[in-house]
């Protein structure tokens, strides 16, 4: 990482696609308004100009075709990147994701690979309402066959997306809409980040917060608040849920003995439960306090921006939890 170049999360994703499309002509992109318009969040800007309408394809509003068509293309020699305009729309292509994309390989005896990436802009931002604001990673976690990646920084987003595109398995790539303008260092030189490797975003010794996506940033802010109280917080970002870096989770829990798991999705049935279960199975004796989940409120995301803000765990809420758990 020589050159200190700073770009946005959105640009990092764009670069990853551009580089991989240049490298491998089987890679193509399709989605609603991803073409000349550059995507509703601007993430695909310039790709249509660069690669033309055959490789950057504006599609109908047909999510089942988007995903199922991606599978059809993937098993016949292409490597599609499919953008759903909002991550919530996985439900509009549920069987295509769970029944086709995730299972085609296994159920046909391993005779086909399904090398495709589903790009899924997630999260509650700006009042997009109950059907355009969720972080539905846990639904995919409950069914096997698809990798799940959730980057929290521009650096991670680029390196992980490149790996996802090169991987021969289907990958659900969750991009947080609230992070698109977040800036961070991304080297000029090419690099990739292996899927399934957690990253310690902050080293600490007293309490661990395991968080992903946008909540990594809230966790880091909370850690700074806690530092003033003399509590040293470690922030572990699994950067994805499948493959899940169980070793990194166990290691940090063994180190701090106190753990908070935090995500934006509603707490009940969220993926934090899986992390909690893994800890309770593998390193419960290292715990010096109950596991704590600080997650989204269990309610649909309201349309109102005013109410929406109350849904997402804040740094302050995390700070309170840190203090409680440190004092346990």
């Amino acid at each position, binding site marked *: 990482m020589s050159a200190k170049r700073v770009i946005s999360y959105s640009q990092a994703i764009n670069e990853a696609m551009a580089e991989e499309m240049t490298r491998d002509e089987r890679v193509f992109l399709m989605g609603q308004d991803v073409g000349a318009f550059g995507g509703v969040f601007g993430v695909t800007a310039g790709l249509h100009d660069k690669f033309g309408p055959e490789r950057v394809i504006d599609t109908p509003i047909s999510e089942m075709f988007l995903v199922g068509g991606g599978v059809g293309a993937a098993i016949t020699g292409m490597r599609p990147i499919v953008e759903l305009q909002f991550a919530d*729309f996985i439900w509009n292509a549920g069987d295509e994701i769970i029944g086709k994309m995730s299972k085609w390989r296994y159920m046909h005896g391993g005779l086909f690979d399904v090398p495709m990436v589903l790009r899924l802009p997630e999260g509650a931002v700006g009042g997009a309402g109950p059907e355009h604001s969720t972080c539905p990673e846990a639904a995919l976690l409950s069914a096997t066959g698809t990798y799940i990646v959730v980057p929290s920084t521009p650096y991670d987003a680029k390196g992980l997306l490149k790996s996802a595109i090169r991987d021969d398995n289907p990958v659900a790539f969750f991009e947080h809409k609230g992070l698109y303008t977040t800036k961070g260092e991304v080297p000029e030189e090419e690099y990739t980040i292996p899927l399934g490797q957690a990253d310690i975003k902050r080293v600490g010794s007293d309490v661990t917060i395991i968080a992903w996506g946008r909540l990594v940033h809230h966790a880091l802010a909370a850690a700074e608040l806690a530092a003033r109280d003399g509590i040293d917080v470690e922030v572990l970002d699994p950067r994805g849920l499948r493959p899940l870096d169980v070793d990194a989770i166990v290691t940090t829990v063994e180190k701090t003995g106190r753990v908070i798991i935090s995500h934006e999705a509603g707490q009940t049935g969220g993926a934090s439960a899986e992390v909690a279960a893994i800890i309770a199975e593998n390193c419960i004796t290292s715990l010096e306090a109950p596991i704590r989940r600080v997650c989204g409120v269990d309610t649909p995301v309201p349309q109102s921006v005013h109410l929406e803000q109350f849904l997402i765990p804040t740094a302050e809420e995390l700070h309170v939890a840190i203090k409680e758990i440190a004092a346990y």
Partner: protein
Amino acid sequence: MLTPELKILIYRTMYQVQQWEKKLLQFLDDGLVSGFYHAGRGHEALEVASMLALRQDDYLLYDHRGCGHMIAKGMDMVSLYGDFLANDKGSTKGLGAGIVHIADPDRGVLGQSGTLGGGHVLAAGAGLSIKLRGTDQVVVNFFGDGAANRGTFHEGANAAGAWKLPVIYIVQNNGWAISTPVDKVTAVKSFAERAAGYGMRGVSIDGMDPFAVYEATVSAVEQARRGGGPTLIEGKVVRFRGHFEGDPGTYRPEEELAQGKAQDPVITTRARLIAEKTADEQQLTALEEEVNAEVDAAAAEALTGTMPGRERLAEGAYA
């Protein structure tokens, strides 16, 4: 029947819808409304005149584009503003803002599926419910040319056709789904051509002509009420503004847009009423002033609402 009174009411409501939206855009500019709004400007004739062919107990499912249908269906303008302002004057009592899920059970306004085309199947279900309950209500489902390509349409239309359900599918074909022109992603020139595949009557009309819209809807409603089954009405309309407020719409050929705007349904209908001598200038001006006052009053009242507290977040998920 398109009586002079009705024609004037149609114009009045279209004008009201336009003014209502104008004020809403001002709220947006003033930063009072957050989130997304997809202006209905240009769609007034289709949204309004179709609704005036319905009864209060008929059902409406709408999409993100405009609020003309809800206003024409009799909803209180205060509650609509309240939803955008996200305060307790709104129909959902502070839950809304942006692409709001406005609803009014008493006026048959069943709400919106934020995932486009979700209404296609709900409409068929409401139609089935009408049939099972043995009433002669009808249900109207609005959607765009983009949403027409969702698979839910196939499933809803097939059930409605097979069981002769009282459903009216109204596709607002404005030629664009955000930045995507209809002919790039759709295999057929007119959506009305798809109706036959569901044993449905399909008509394509000028959605900028409110009287044509009214007649087409009346005929669909009559057929539906007497058990004759569903109709698909394609109204060709023009989206005057960006997809949502904030979209510069640079992808649209200027000429196309200019041509479209020249057909402004509010202006042309006004001129027509005068030309046909259904009303005179003075009468319409008076009516417009009346509407302006109503809109202003509604806006003012809506602004007196209160934003809900945090507790609202957890209310209403379960019965």
